């Protein structure tokens, strides 16, 4: 119990003092998480809409692959990215391993199937006759995607929250491809791991509380701008 009280005290101490270590790590966490969330949303939602609204050979396999991607173990993603961007990897010449870009790439690989898969699932909830009605008006794929996206707008906020949640809490891949370098690639999750390793449990718990607060704040912000359900006549 003492350690928890001590952690809360330490947390407030870090925040009130605007501790540069905490601020740097938090800023990087927020920046990377939001960037990978926005990118995965911008790429994943249109891709999900296109997959859901088009009929093509191998669609079932593709959807199954995307759904499997939602459960992709981050450690495996980290390993693959590390192998690809390592010195002897296919993209080794870019020299991106242990950089923020590498973290962004691995987070994107984790969040993209989440955004795409949840969008496909949300499109499945739109009545078939509504999609056919759009077809009957001669809607192009872009127009159809726009109107269907408008129908699933509430679900799209959930997509954003899920994508953010998958990247902000990620530790395995970030550690593997970012290297947890102080002032360079250390984010809140890897900072917790580092502090635990050196026995600073109160500081680690302080970082964890900030991480929880950050996750809650972002999710609250997203859900507060999401449209609310109205009652039927």
């Amino acid at each position, binding site marked *: 119990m003492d350690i928890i009280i001590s952690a809360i005290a330490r947390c407030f101490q870090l925040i009130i003092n605007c501790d540069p270590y905490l601020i740097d790590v938090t800023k990087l966490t927020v920046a990377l998480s939001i960037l990978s969330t926005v990118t995965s949303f911008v790429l994943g939602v249109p891709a999900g809409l296109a997959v859901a609204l088009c009929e093509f050979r191998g669609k079932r396999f593709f959807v199954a692959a995307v759904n499997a991607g939602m459960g992709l173990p981050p450690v495996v993603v980290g390993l693959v990215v590390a192998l690809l961007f390592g010195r002897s990897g296919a993209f080794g010449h870019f020299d991106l391993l242990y950089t923020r870009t590498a973290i962004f790439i691995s987070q994107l690989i984790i969040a993209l199937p989440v955004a795409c898969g949840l969008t496909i699932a949300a499109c499945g909830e739109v009545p078939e*006759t*509504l999609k056919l009605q*759009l077809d*009957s*008006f001669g809607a192009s794929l872009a127009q159809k995607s726009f*109107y269907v996206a*408008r129908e699933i707008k509430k679900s799209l906020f959930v997509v954003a929250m899920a994508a953010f949640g998958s990247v902000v809490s990620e530790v395995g891949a970030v550690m593997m491809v970012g290297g947890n370098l102080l002032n360079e690639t250390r984010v809140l999750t890897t900072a917790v791991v580092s502090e635990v390793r050196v026995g600073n449990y109160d500081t680690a718990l302080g970082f964890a509380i900030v991480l929880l607060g950050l996750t809650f704040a972002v999710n609250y912000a997203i859900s507060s701008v999401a449209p609310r359900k*109205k009652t039927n*006549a």
Partner: protein
Amino acid sequence: MNILELRNLKFEYPRESGRKNFTLDAPELFVEKGSNMALFGESGSGKSTLLRICAGLQKGCSGEIRLFDSPLDFSKSRRDTAVLSRTAILFQDAPLFDCTVFDNIAIGLKIRKTPAAEIDSAVGAIMEKLNISGLARAHSREISGGQARRVCLARVLVMKPELLFLDEPFYSLDTNNRSQIMHELKSMCSELAVTLMLVTHDKNEALALCESIAVIDGGSIIRRGSVRECFNNPASEAEAKLLGRSTILYGRVVKCESEVAEIECAPTGGGSKSITIQAAASYSAGDRVCVIINPQDISVGLKKENPFENDGASSVLNNYDGVIESGMHYEFGMLVNILTGSDTRLQAYITSKSFEKLGIAPGLAVKVSVKATSVKSFPMP
């Protein structure tokens, strides 16, 4: 002039659809401009599928469809929008989009990139015609079922289609709303010169809105013609079953004299006696036939007051004693079940006035009469 022509159309659902044993086969179907057509059949008979094919929304069929004298190309990945823009479709359970009523109605015009000023005037005009002007700014969730149906109708009529496909459009509406919207639809279609192709399994809807009919059973068109002719004179056993409420009997011809066949039919009431029916038809003795008697062709009278019975001097050849089993109220009268003395159950329509006059009640002994010319019969294999 035909605005829709369909020849040798065949369609099978893909294996993964779960309807792999269903085949739609429509050798020929025409829709004339200004002559509304009903596609009539039971649920699952293929009428909605046929409608979607005609509307260019169902791929994977073979055959020829000509819309406004232009062939529809099923092999194209995209719909043939030039031809199909002259049509519109209203689905059975068409939901509204999650936006205002005005935006719901304007969606089709926006998709076709109609200028905003034109959209405003067209949507305003159609809303006025359908008496929903006051709902323009209301959200689609805030309106009633009847209003939602009007919005759906406005959404397709605002596109000014020449051919409007309707897939059971009055499904789930109460009787008042149904008849009111049917009236509005009928008057608007004649005003805007829209031809309807209506999928329904309701005789009243077909009678109220359509001039011609195609009866579909098990994926095949079994009858085409005028609505009244089809409903009054079913031409086959399958058709009679589909159109409903007819008494259908099976029997063998005993003899045939002066173009009147005497047919001995098996009872339908569970007993062992057979019923002899005389039908105006030519058969050979021993032929197996199906006999159909429409409820409106059966006269019911009290045992001693049968107007047609006059010691055998009547022209009515089929007279039976019976007992009233039950009766159900219909819009203009009653549909009564009568069990004849020969264990056969007959259904007859009688007016409310006759019902009261005769004092119809279960157990009442009656005489039923059917003219031989009103008895339809079909040879059976």
